[in-house]
């Protein structure tokens, strides 16, 4: 009878980067139509989705408009700031 070999239990860990959130903040200057236009232009969202995000900015003071890898978040925030929207990116909780 063959000896039974008990293999140690292994656990595979998959390293996943914590996503980063791109945030747009409200301000008293930028027009609602412009905020919608910029979000559509930069992220390629349709008008209804961009309008929902714009209303979150207007009503809640901020909105998470995109989540994903850090390099892309940096790029998007640079684009948003170049369009003069108050924006930043932070690690998702």
């Amino acid at each position, binding site marked *: 009878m063959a000896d039974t070999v008990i293999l140690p239990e292994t656990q595979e860990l998959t390293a996943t980067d914590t996503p980063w959130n791109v945030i747009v903040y409200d301000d*008293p*200057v930028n*027009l609602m139509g*412009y905020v919608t236009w910029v979000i559509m232009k930069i992220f390629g969202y349709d008008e209804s989705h961009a309008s929902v995000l714009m209303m979150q900015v207007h009503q809640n003071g901020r909105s998470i408009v995109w989540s994903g890898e850090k390099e892309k978040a940096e790029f998007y925030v*640079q684009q948003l700031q170049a369009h*003069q929207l*108050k924006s*930043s990116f*932070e*690690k998702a909780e």
Partner: protein
Amino acid sequence: MKAMPTLEGGLRLDTEDPSDWELLRAVIADAHVSTTEDLANRMGNLITEEAGAEDWEEYIVPDLREGFQDELAEVGAAIESAIVEADGQAGPIWITPENAYPWYSALNQARLALEEQFKFGPSEELGVETLSPVRAAAFLRSKFYCAIQSLLLEYVMK
């Protein structure tokens, strides 16, 4: 001053008096006024240490600043060129679809700088009769810039 959409998809502004040109020149002057930091720096201040604020200030802020200045320079040159064309008298200035965004940006920079300086807040809550003459003039300029921006958004950029 009158504003109307053009058949080519742009916007035409007609000054009705030579002094109207000063109102357009004020866009550039207002955009350059800042109490403490310029627009690019104020944008950069929103980036946290964790997100890389130091690198942002070193690499991104100068690019943003250059972009904002280029847009102001383009609009400033268009205004001066229109004044020369009109021989300093009342005359038109055209905003084509191709240069609508630099115009929108210049007007926005002016409004952001005025807001930074005067802290008007949401304009519907403000009564112009309660403001000092300097603040009232700045507020009315900001409203004028906002009106042109609304026309650009409605007739040219969308």
